């Protein structure tokens, strides 16, 4: 049996969209980008895909990577990116009932799908999704699936029936070990995700995703109810008024800034 890695990826609004171009949809209670700005695969999820591919590179022919994503609708050229990077299969959990789920419900949907997929060795997630910044779904999955969970990995190595993970911790580094199967979340410190090459893109074009709806997962509808009620989404008002320090030239501005900070007793 090859090592089976499941990577959970989420399609999100592009976080590089300038804040001024974003607006709040009061009905849907979410942020929306202009129509010409396509969504992206959550950045940390690309890092998770990269982590999976590095494990695959180290064990040629012995690793299968399944990508799992849950949502109401997908931009196919976006959500297929992990396939073009080198993943083997894409399973989309797609249903109107899966629109803008909270972390609690998302974890239940993903857990049901993972159980349906059968045997696996590692579940990889991003450390957090850049839309709601929850960083909850992976820990939820670990609890629901009864897996040891390791977060914020910058290096993931598989040895036999164990995984060795280097974590980013404030002020240093930590190496931990867990038995498989395990759940791991990945951070950008792992390094740049690879760019899809032409062969990968061609292969991805040919692959069709497997699509499962809520009914295929035998989910108790009660589990799709939000556990956290979103009452309001708003953009905070900024009331700071900057004082621009002028000067004869840039160097003079620098000098005047220092004098200003002294006057304000800040230095």
């Amino acid at each position, binding site marked *: 049996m090859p090592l089976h890695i499941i990577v959970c990826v989420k399609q999100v609004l592009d976080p590089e969209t300038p804040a001024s171009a974003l607006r709040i949809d009061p009905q849907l209670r979410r942020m929306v980008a202009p129509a010409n700005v396509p969504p992206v695969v959550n950045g940390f999820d690309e890092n998770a895909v990269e982590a999976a591919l590095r494990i695959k590179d180290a064990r040629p022919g012995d690793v299968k990577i399944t990508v799992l994503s849950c949502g109401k609708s997908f931009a196919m050229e976006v959500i297929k990116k992990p396939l073009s990077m080198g993943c083997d299969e894409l399973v989309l959990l797609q249903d109107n009932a899966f629109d803008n789920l909270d972390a609690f419900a998302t974890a239940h949907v993903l857990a049901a799908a993972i159980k349906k997929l059968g045997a696996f060795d590692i579940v990889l997630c991003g450390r957090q999704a850049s839309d709601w910044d929850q960083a909850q779904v992976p820990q939820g999955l670990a*609890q629901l699936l009864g897996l040891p969970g390791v977060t914020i990995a910058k290096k993931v190595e598989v040895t036999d029936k164990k995984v060795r993970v280097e974590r980013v911790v404030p002020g240093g580094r930590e190496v931990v070990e867990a038995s498989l199967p395990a759940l791991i979340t990945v951070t950008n410190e792992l390094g740049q995700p690879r760019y899809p090459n032409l062969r990968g893109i061609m292969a991805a074009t040919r692959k069709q995703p497997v699509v499962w709806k809520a009914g295929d997962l035998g989910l108790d509808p009660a589990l799709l109810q939000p556990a*956290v009620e979103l009452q309001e989404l708003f953009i905070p008002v*900024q009331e700071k008024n900057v004082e621009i320090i002028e000067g004869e030239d840039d160097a003079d501005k620098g000098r005047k800034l220092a004098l200003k900070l002294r006057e304000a007793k800040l230095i």
Partner: protein
Amino acid sequence: MSSTSGVLVVGETQNGRLAPVTAELLGLARSLARGLQEQVAVVLGAEKLSPEAAADAIAYGAETVYTVEHALMEQSPVEAMLAVVERVVREKTPTVVLVGKTLAGSDLGPGLAFRLGVGLAQDCIEVTLDSKEKGLVAVRPVYGGVAMARVALKRMPYVATVRPKAFDPPQRDTSRKGEVVALNPSLDASVARVRVLERASEESAGVRLEDARVVVGGGRGLGGPEPFQMLEELAKLLGGAVGASRAVCDAGWVPYHYQIGLTGKTIAPDLYITVAISGASQHMAGCSGARNIVAINKDRDSNIFKEARFGVVADWKKALPAFAETVKELVKSG
């Protein structure tokens, strides 16, 4: 059903003392408990706890301190603590559980909420509670800090993780009285499936970024690692520390422990001098507690000028050396 009562804080220690974030949580816990006319308890776990940590917790407002000393707290801190906290919550049935959004708390909070089958308000900067039944209402930054979400929890216990430095620590009052209760849970090795093999500190000597009163931060506009030398000198002169944006850390100009922001460190200095940082929301998420932000940036339209108190629209190559020189003279002249 036993009746629910009190606010439980999941505490942390740092070098044998109570961690600053736990003091902040105790302040918040007291204000919530006052509204409920209930009590505040804290749970502390470590392989070996110093008596000072428990005394600190009482001085900051805990009426009860549950302590757990166990070897697994060192080997498998998150899983061991989660097992203990779950038991305390099931036994004492608090109305509210507060956890710091620290490295450990970020794992523990969601883990606990899922075990209890309740929702979690994650990374909150405001937490209020009108009455028990109405639920807990919290404000949390979302979309990298571009927007705020007001969320409500309706099922007890209300579990929230709280962003460090979002709340001021209360006055320390050593005359306060409280009870220290040592718990002796039988934690067997099966709860510990993640084992720490190695811990290494990579932080440089000097003032810690999180604690610094003055921070000098560098951004992508610096163009490379060399200018950080000047930033380091400036920080040293002011008794502060150097930080950076993620773009700079991703480029490898400085190590990742310099990163300030949503996925980096949270700072709250009196003075934060930014050089060639654009002020993206994810960066600002780490310095909303900074009392005075100064921006040196050549682009007047950069977001950083919306957040700054003082700004200079200039090329740092010209402005920074002159600024640093003048600062040096001013500091020398006392």
